[in-house]
């Protein structure tokens, strides 16, 4: 039920959500790189984020889809010279915009039950935890590749600089997803 409501909210307010995110990005003093983008490009990037959560929910919250999406996002943003903290903060803003919209909607309708609120937040948290994790993975993997290609570090030096275990942690995503925050333990 909450899944369906969340899909409906994103679907019917896609443009509003995106525009709110764009406004927040423009207001922020931390998102200098995002602010260099044209309004249209910024809107498109914000829109992509919300469309992705919508598709993720519609397609049964598939782990693989979210994992690939965020990994590629981290990888691409590294190539575009975005600082990791900026992309992380931009994603955090998306979460805030979405959650604030749900809370605001309830302020006007007063229909959100406490259990539903927890379930909403559980889904949102699990999605963004998965997102944050894979975003960092994509970003750091690309950094590793670039440093390796620079030939300025040999394998041992690079291993010391960026532990290669990071390369073998893809499966953590599955745990992040399958374990998730638990909505059945409401006291």
């Amino acid at each position: 039920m909450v899944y369906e409501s969340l899909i409906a909210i994103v679907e019917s307010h896609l443009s509003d959500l995106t525009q709110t995110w764009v406004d927040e990005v423009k207001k922020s003093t931390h998102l200098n790189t995002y602010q260099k983008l044209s309004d249209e490009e910024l809107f498109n990037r914000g829109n992509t984020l919300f469309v992705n959560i919508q598709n993720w929910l519609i397609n049964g919250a598939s782990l693989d889809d979210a994992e690939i999406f965020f990994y590629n996002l981290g990888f691409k943003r590294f190539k575009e010279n975005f600082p990791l903290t900026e992309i992380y903060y931009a994603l955090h803003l998306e979460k805030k915009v979405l959650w604030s919209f749900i809370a605001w909607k309830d302020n006007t309708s007063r229909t959100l039950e406490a259990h539903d609120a927890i379930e909403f937040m559980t889904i949102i948290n699990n999605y963004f935890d998965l997102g944050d994790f894979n975003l960092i993975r994509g970003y750091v993997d690309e950094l590793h590749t670039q440093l390796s290609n620079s030939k300025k570090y040999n394998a041992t030096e690079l291993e010391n600089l960026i532990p290669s275990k990071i390369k073998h942690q893809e499966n953590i995503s599955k745990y992040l997803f399958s374990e998730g925050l638990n909505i059945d333990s409401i006291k």
Partner: protein
Amino acid sequence: MNTNLSNIVDTQIEELKSNWLKEVRESDFLKTYKTYTDEETIKKGEAVYSHLSQWIKEGATNENAAKYFDSVGSERFKQKFPLTEVHYAIYLLKKIFWNRIDWRDKVTGSFETENTTKIMNVFNDYFDLANFHISKGYFNELLKSIDDDRKFSKEDLRSLLLKGKLEAEELEDDEFIWRHV
């Protein structure tokens, strides 16, 4: 409402610590954490929870959390933890804590949406701040290390890794407000 969360730390710290240790020992992914003794591992998890309680009691300001987690990120880099492993550890600490939250209103004892929402906001702010600042502290230390190696000129380094607001001095804590939009 905030005391609801700090009370969990104050009254259930032993359970939180033992759950954390169990998760670390059973995890296939926390390989670097597993190289530490039980005592050291517990200390790492306990510090995050104790800081949460302290943070709430001191008014949940960004500044306190930022400083603390920046240093955690920096320290974990020096200890050669992969950043994803640190994030996964924070996720586990968050999950353990989430399962112990009593969502009922302290006065009425009932489930109230407003109360629930407030608890969630504080809970999320803390762990989001943790992840953000750990990444920042970790990356700053990584960049410093590359810089110290002198294998790249300043200009090369800048083009390889646009540091932007990763530089601590450029990130003004007052500006960085975790808030509802």
